[in-house]
């Protein structure tokens, strides 16, 4: 690998550094010796067939999965099993899930306020103000006082994005954010993500939406069998894939 993790300037610019990451589930190697560096402001899209380890890799970044081996640095913090470091990193890393995972017993506003007051220790007024700002940002300020079950899937996912953004994360992770949505709702979520990308948010997105990859990604990573097969810019990957496995995958989905 062509980077030196001991170089301080390098660490400063790369908000996420992954070195020789392994994750095994029993005998299955979901992630196999992956090394990556993601720079501040980059929008990285990870694609690959199902079971290729892309979601697992993403979930390792905020330790929702505990890696079996290797090292991860996020914003200069070396992640180990120590829960204090994990919580510090999670505060800076927003995550959006395939199944939204909104808290059903709380209103939309309360969903967005909770972690701000509990984790960031903001006052109620501050948190409400921030929540309203983020709801406006994702385009549904009028839904502040309803419960998640009263929203469409697309709206729920936008609330989930607002909830993550309210924590002022330095990085946003998206784990197949549109896979559980009806086709007509995919666009509204992708638009929100596209705007985020334009605003300069550092994003790592696992998705099957090739349109988003083409329009928004600075960099696209193709994974298969737990390994990074190709790591390049989107125009190159779509027009001139180097690896036969990439070609095969693209021929199936495009």
């Amino acid at each position: 690998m062509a980077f030196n993790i001991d170089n301080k300037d390098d660490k400063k610019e790369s908000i996420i550094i992954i070195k020789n990451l392994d994750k095994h589930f029993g005998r299955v190697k979901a992630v196999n010796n992956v090394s990556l560096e993601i720079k501040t402001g980059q929008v990285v899209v990870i694609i690959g067939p199902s079971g290729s380890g892309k979601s697992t890799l993403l979930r390792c970044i905020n330790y929702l999965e505990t890696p079996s081996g290797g090292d991860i640095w996020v914003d200069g913090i070396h992640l180990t099993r120590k829960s204090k470091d994990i919580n510090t990193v999670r505060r800076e890393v927003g995550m959006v899930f395939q199944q939204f995972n909104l808290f059903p017993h709380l209103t939309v506003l309360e969903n967005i306020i909770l972690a701000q007051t509990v984790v960031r220790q903001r006052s109620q007024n501050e948190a409400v103000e921030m929540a309203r700002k983020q709801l406006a940002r994702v385009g549904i300020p009028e839904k502040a006082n309803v419960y998640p079950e009263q929203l469409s899937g697309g709206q729920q996912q936008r609330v989930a994005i607002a909830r993550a953004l309210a924590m002022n994360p330095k990085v946003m992770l998206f784990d197949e954010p549109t896979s559980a949505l009806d086709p007509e709702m995919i666009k509204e979520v992708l638009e929100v993500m596209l705007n985020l990308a334009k605003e300069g948010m550092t994003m790592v997105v696992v998705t099957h939406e090739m349109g988003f990859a083409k329009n928004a990604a600075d960099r696209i990573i193709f994974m298969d069998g737990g390994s990074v097969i190709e790591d390049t810019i989107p125009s190159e990957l779509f027009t001139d894939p180097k690896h036969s496995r990439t070609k095969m995958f693209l021929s199936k989905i495009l």
Partner: protein
Amino acid sequence: MNDTRNSASTQVRLTNTLAGLPWWLLIVTLAGLFMIYSFYTDKTYNSIFGFLKAGLIVTMRVTFISYAIAITLGLLTGLGRVSKNPIIYNVATLYVQVMRGLPILVTILYVSFVITPWLMAQINWVGVSLANINLLSPDNVLAKLGDRSAGLNVDFEVRAIAALSISYGAFSAEIFRAGIESIGRGQMEAARSLGMNYFQAMRHVILPQAIRRVLPPLGNDFIAMLKESSLVSVLGVQDITQLGRLYSASSFEYLKTYNMVALMYLIMTVILSLGVKITEKRLSTDGF
């Protein structure tokens, strides 16, 4: 032709409506009304009720206090049962498995006649030891605990409450565990990904949802506790059952006394189970 079909379907509808009515409640209510009527007209019933009234308060007191302790213990143990810490998990599981494997009557006898005397003996020993090194006077409270003449015995009602509490703590622990486990993994992951620690996620995200789901089974536990509290009569605690035994044995009015005992429990349990049903309905219309 049309007419007969119409009348046939009307008949089916009527039968369905009739079958759907809560006849059991009507029968219980009628029996209750008949007995209340007899209490007023029958002097024996009247005097039985006067005798059992005091027991009603004891039964309620034992039930409420035991239940309050049991659900507190159950919540803590339930959290232990889903803990990843092997020590906490095993302590919680040992407690649950032992207590669920024992008949409640045996637990009551064991706590009252084995554990409580043993604990008192230990406290006595501490008291006597402290007196021996002149830190306390020879007749200090610790040394005298359990001495009936000094009026310092542990009341049998207290022992009964302790036994029922630890028994039902194990039952409600399993209810809480099931409730917590019924909340999808994604909820914990979402909370943790926002930077909450395990306890914050439990307190603000998992438990509020879990507790709503376990309210009906916890209500059923309360009803079971009310009935099971009659077992404390073996310790001589003067609850409804014990007073009924005393009254019938001295008056030979077995039929009327136990009618009264049964009815008193039945009225309480039927009212409570209707309450549980209403809670269940309201929760299911509330969604999630």
